């Protein structure tokens, strides 16, 4: 079976799909860290909230309604979090931030349970994405291809924004050196706010996109958190290149590990992370400054 080309194609697509999902989560987290030196452990919980908000909206207006509402709702939540919590925690050390956002995980976990109960919810895939598509000699679920395409689209969009626009230049300047950015007359505070909300929106989007593949449960945020953290630590905290590289590494190691060496699969990724931290303590593509 492993000599079959179709098998490799299938696994590669699976890996790519997982990578894209992780990319949506890690890009927001890593840019927030790069800009604000803020570690948001509750980023995974925002993803869960996105899945719930999407599921609730989808129940009323179908999948596309959910896909629209989830990022907006989570971005709205980002506004609340930023003004209520994050802004005041900016100057605290990493430990205080880790703890506050750890507390936030608890709070968001129970809030989703209070609003939506403990039973798993599901989102129906839209009709034309529910089948399978013939591709490269295999049949592949259309929805998963949609996830890959969406991820690539977001990646391209972000690459364009960061590389070609004024805002992108400001963000890159801020990631490299926030004092310098302030000197250049950039309203750092407003930039932070915007980036934080966009990061939240992407987490919400990841949640609703993942929802038809998994079931929506209160602890889905906790489950995705560790892979997301691994991605950004392998890639380098605050590094844009690192987020995409880390996502791909995680997606492929995890997927191929699971089929080739199921005994080692989950240990493998942690061993890889440990190796990266030992050899390159700042990640593969460390951010400057």
């Amino acid at each position, binding site marked *: 079976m492993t000599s079959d080309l179709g098998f490799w194609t299938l696994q590669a697509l699976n890996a790519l799909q997982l990578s894209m999902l992780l990319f949506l989560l890690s890009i927001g987290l890593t840019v927030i860290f790069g800009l604000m030196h803020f570690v948001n452990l509750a980023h995974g919980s925002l993803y869960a909230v996105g899945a719930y908000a999407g599921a609730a909206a989808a129940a009323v207006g179908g999948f596309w309604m959910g896909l629209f509402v989830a990022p907006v709702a989570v971005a709205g939540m980002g506004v609340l979090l930023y003004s209520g919590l994050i802004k005041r925690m900016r100057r605290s050390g990493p430990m205080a931030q880790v*703890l506050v956002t*750890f507390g936030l995980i608890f709070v968001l976990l129970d809030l989703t349970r*209070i609003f939506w109960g403990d039973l798993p919810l599901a989102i129906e895939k839209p009709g034309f994405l529910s089948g399978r598509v013939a591709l490269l000699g295999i049949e592949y679920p259309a929805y998963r291809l949609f996830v890959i395409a969406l991820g690539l689209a977001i990646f391209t969009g972000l690459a364009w924004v960061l590389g070609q626009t004024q805002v992108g230049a400001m963000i890159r300047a801020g990631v490299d050196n926030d004092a310098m950015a302030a000197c250049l007359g950039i309203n750092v505070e407003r930039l932070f706010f915007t980036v934080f909300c966009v990061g939240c929106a992407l987490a919400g989007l990841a949640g609703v996109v993942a929802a038809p593949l998994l079931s929506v449960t209160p602890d889905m945020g906790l489950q995705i958190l560790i892979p997301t953290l691994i991605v950004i630590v392998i890639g380098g905290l605050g590094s844009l290149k690192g987020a995409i590289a880390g996502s791909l590494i995680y997606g492929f190691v995890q997927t191929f590990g699971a089929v080739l060496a199921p005994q080692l*699969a989950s*240990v493998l990724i942690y061993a890889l992370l440990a190796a990266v931290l030992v050899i390159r303590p700042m990640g593969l593509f460390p951010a400057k400054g």
Partner: protein
Amino acid sequence: MFRHTPLRYIALALLAAGALFQAATAGYFGLEILIEILILAMLVLALDMVAGFGGMVSLCHGALMGVGAYAFATFGGILGLTPLVSLVGAIALTGATAWVIGAVCARSHGIYFIMATLAFGQMAYSYVFQTPFFGGDDGMGGIERLDLTALGIDLTDSRSFALFCLGVLGLVYLATVAVLRSGLGRSLTGVMHSEQRMRALGLTVWRVKADVFGLSGMIAGLAGALSAMHIMYISPGLLDWTVSGEALVVVILGGLGTLVGPMIGAVALVVLKHELSAITPYWHLVVGLLLIGVVMSRANGIFGWIEAQIGARLDKRLNDITRPQPTEEPRDA
């Protein structure tokens, strides 16, 4: 460097008295809660030792405790060793594991250290979870408690076991204080202040970090073995990172770097958890809000806050009584 202040002695005395009272009078459930507190207190002492005095904020102490529990169960249940030998073996193995983690992570700082320890913790979790030898998801049962009948103590009795754990906790506390006051402990505090300077003075910094992390791991391993003895059943959930997270929460809620504070935090968390879960299924919400409130208040936890309010006044008064020398806290020899 750790210092005892009058306030800390008072808090220790109150804690000990409370624990003894509870051990003497409580019923079965009260004793179960007490044992849970005592074991958690050992774990948070281990964590405070590295985090509060060495700046090594570990997110793998829960996993280390799990390693201790699994080692104890494996040595006893599968290799057929006596509980005492298993206990010593579990402590040694966990200490060695922690030493290696400490040595590897010694170069990482801040958020990277947190992430690196998290990675090692999760590695242990995944390994245990996926290995049929350890029972995988089902865990392991049939764990024996230490046999102290030669001393006339029957540890299968909850009350005796609770008193036994209290005794062990007392020893762990004394050992932690001794480590922090040793040359090694002083060097550790120096490293927390300025690693660069300690290195320039000729200290092999990674060795100090690894050694203390190893010692802390031994305590975590002991706590794990006791926890295995207590419940007589273990599952991979013990090693999950949220256990480490909770231990860190306890240290912070209680007061980082005060030793006494984290023990108070352990009491607070376990009691709160039991009281709240009797009223509402959403006790995480309350604990989460409490945690956010404490961290945002910028007080050093419950005990840190008390020390800032009362301690300064108390120390001043005592100083005024003894001699008109200001500043320094009284140091016991």
